[in-house]
């Protein structure tokens, strides 16, 4: 297990280097620069050039890259222009909403998906089993911003039972916090749960053909036990991988969700960073998303070890 963790840490360093380098050059390819954003649309060319120079952004790109990389190695992610301060504390200040959204939607999706998938696999002739394919396809195909706006219209504007946008911290008012998180999480869950159901149902259907289940039934294990204790742990293996990687997708997807719902997390931070060409902030957030992605997949691999003794032996 220690070997696995070490390997993953090595991978993390490589991933960070590649992601950081790619982001550095990609964002510098976007036309415009922070000086334009700071000066607004009516600034003269002269003003823009002056401010660009005073921010050190008129240096050759490679020089800027080497400086940036040198600082990163020393753990310095640079300064955000909008926040006029180091990037790292800004990113940690905005971590909570994003983690709540990503973790909340993943846990809820899994909790919903497991019984639904098992039911569909165990009773292939039932109504639900027939509906599961179109329903999950719908969930996967719906654009999240569209669903978000429809839900806001129905529950926020027409029935007025949920706020249309905003965010309240859990520490301040847990009741309000939950109210503000309901719609964004529902939007994320609609996609994630559909993905989990589709995957888990497939693997579960495969597992149900296993002869060891017949043995279990012959030994008198109740059907419920057969499904949840014997078949599910095996069927979960491919699902763990899907859940791990979908957590990464959710981190990417929160950009849209946080922008629509005005939630002050990493997504909004990234969106604002891009519109104002806050280079260090954009790279910082992207790197942190990469870190979380790698960590979550490490956890998924460790769970694999727990769930499947064969992997441990190998």
């Amino acid at each position: 297990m220690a070997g696995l963790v070490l390997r993953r840490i090595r991978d993390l360093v490589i991933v960070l280097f590649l992601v950081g380098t790619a982001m550095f050059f990609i964002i510098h390819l976007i036309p415009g620069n922070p000086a334009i954003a700071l000066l607004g649309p009516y600034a003269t060319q002269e003003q823009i050039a002056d401010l660009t120079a005073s921010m050190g952004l008129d240096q050759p790109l490679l020089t800027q890259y080497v400086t940036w990389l040198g600082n990163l190695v020393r753990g310095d992610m640079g300064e955000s222009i909008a926040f006029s301060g180091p990037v790292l504390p800004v990113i940690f200040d905005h971590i909570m909403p994003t983690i709540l959204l990503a973790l909340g939607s993943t846990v809820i999706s899994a909790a919903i998906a497991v019984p639904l998938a098992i039911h569909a696999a165990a009773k292939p002739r039932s109504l639900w089993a027939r509906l599961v394919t179109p329903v999950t396809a719908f969930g996967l195909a719906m654009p999240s911003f569209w669903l978000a706006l429809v839900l806001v219209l129905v529950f926020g504007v027409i029935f007025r039972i949920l706020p249309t946008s905003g965010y309240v911290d859990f520490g301040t008012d847990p009741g309000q916090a939950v109210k503000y998180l309901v719609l964004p999480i529902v939007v994320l869950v609609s996609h994630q749960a559909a993905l989990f159901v589709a995957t888990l149902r497939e693997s579960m259907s495969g597992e149900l053909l296993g002869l060891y289940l017949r043995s279990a039934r012959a030994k008198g294990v109740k059907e419920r036990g057969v499904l949840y204790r014997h078949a599910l742990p095996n069927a979960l293996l491919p699902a763990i991988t899907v859940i791990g990687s979908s957590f990464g997708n959710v981190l990417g997807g929160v950009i849209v969700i946080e922008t629509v719902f005005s939630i002050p997390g990493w997504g909004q931070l990234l969106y604002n960073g891009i519109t104002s060409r806050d280079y260090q902030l954009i790279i910082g957030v992207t790197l942190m998303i990469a870190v979380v992605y790698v960590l979550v997949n490490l956890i998924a691999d460790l769970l694999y070890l727990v769930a499947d003794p064969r992997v441990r032996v190998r």
Partner: protein
Amino acid sequence: MRTRRSFQAQRSYRLPRVRLAAAGTLLALGLAACGSGEGSTGNAEGSSTPVDGGTLIAALAGDPQTLDVAQNSGALTIYVGQNVFEQLFQFDETLNPRPMLAEDYTMSEDGLTYTIPLREGVTFHNGEPMTAADVVASLERWQLVSGPGKLVAADLESITATDDSTVEIVLTQPRYSLISDLAAYVQAAIIVPAEIAEAAGDQPMSDEQIIGTGPYQLAEYTHGQRILLEKYPEYAALEEDWGGFAGAKEAHVDNIEFRFVADPTQQLNGLRTGQFHWAQSVSPDQYEAIKDDPALNVQVTDTGLINTVLLNHNAESPFSDVRARQAMNMLIDKEAMSTAAFGPEVLWTPLSGAMVFPINEPMYSEAGSDVYETYDPEQAKELFTEAGVTADTPIRIATTQTYEKYYQMAVVIQAQLEEIGLTAQVEVFDFPTMIDRLTSEPTSWHLSMTGFSGIPGAPSQINYLTPTWPGEYRSETMDGLLAEYNRATNADEAYEVVEQIQQTIWDEIPVISISPSKTLQVSSSKVQDLATFRPAVFWGTYLSQ
């Protein structure tokens, strides 16, 4: 009123000095019964006695990044900053400059020396009194960081404090527009404490340095989330009100909270459900659907931008020939284009071809409107042929879908060009990229579109008349008129030149003004006495119970 206390847990930028200054007076706030809200600017919505108190929650389309209105020219910065900062002179509702932090001014016979006594009793949000030294330092910085400031700097001999409360400006040549330049609201000559002006220099002022003299002071700026302004209890209000940005500014609501909501639909949803009181960018397409909604105040502002077709005068462009520019003007049916591109009629009338809005008295002229009104595709075709523009040389239109209307304009122009047998190539960029390309790649485009302020204070504040603006318009006639304007000694003389400038614009066609573009300002029906001069002028506004 529910407040979002959650923000306290986030990283926020509390301003200790301001807080301390305010803390001592917070208790007195309730006792300081303000007089009745006489002469509030703008509309006649709600005629009852103004109620003090409450928090006005305004949905802003994005984080302004900086509140330094001296340097940043963007609307987000101005909307917040106009409630915080003041200038020596500011425009009234007919765009005449009025003394705000100045008491008055006198100009010497030769037009070179301006003596400006300052108003007594004005204090900054940090509690310090405003002195001539602060004004001198602020105006020095303004020359470093502001477009209008740099223009003034070219004619400037010196700015000195002759005593604690008098400033003297000496010019090298007469500049009639000086007072209007000082009153310009884009990259404005705001007055801040001297130590802040000196510390900030040519860099944007940091959040801790946002200290003005206005009716509201910055209490908290949590980047990415919100800006909280609070009433400045020591605000030295003028007695008389002239509307616009000038005169008596009475703060009725205790706090103004700007929240950043990028999505226009969500801004409107928030208004409908009472989460917000004001929204910056409700789509004009919603106008018909919401104008009769009793829960909303739907207003059209008196000011805004002038929708404009940019012509490239670069030698490589067909529009370096005045005949091609005249042809382009004749080819555009302004009313048809406005109907197609700018939404409901209230937002783009009256059509007059003027370079400014009708309320801009010192600058409004209809000279040359006959040229503007000529719509004649046949003659346009002939003129294009004379200028050597054929179907083999496609006209390159650079536009953007960031603002849908500019894209619609491009499509209309493309169709009209093709109707007379010419070809056009439409290239679409995001707005900042488009603006960047117009300057950095001057041979890559022939036509483009944007908006210019419809309430400039002087011809020098009209960007396209300056040769640094994309399009490279240069004209001896225009330069001569701009110089003549600055030699004017009174309003009548100046206005005569303005008429000639407007006529020359339609003779030489540096750009084609299409129509005014007014702003839709939507607020909840709880918001009373909201000014229609410009969006987000929140003094004089109150919340009904």
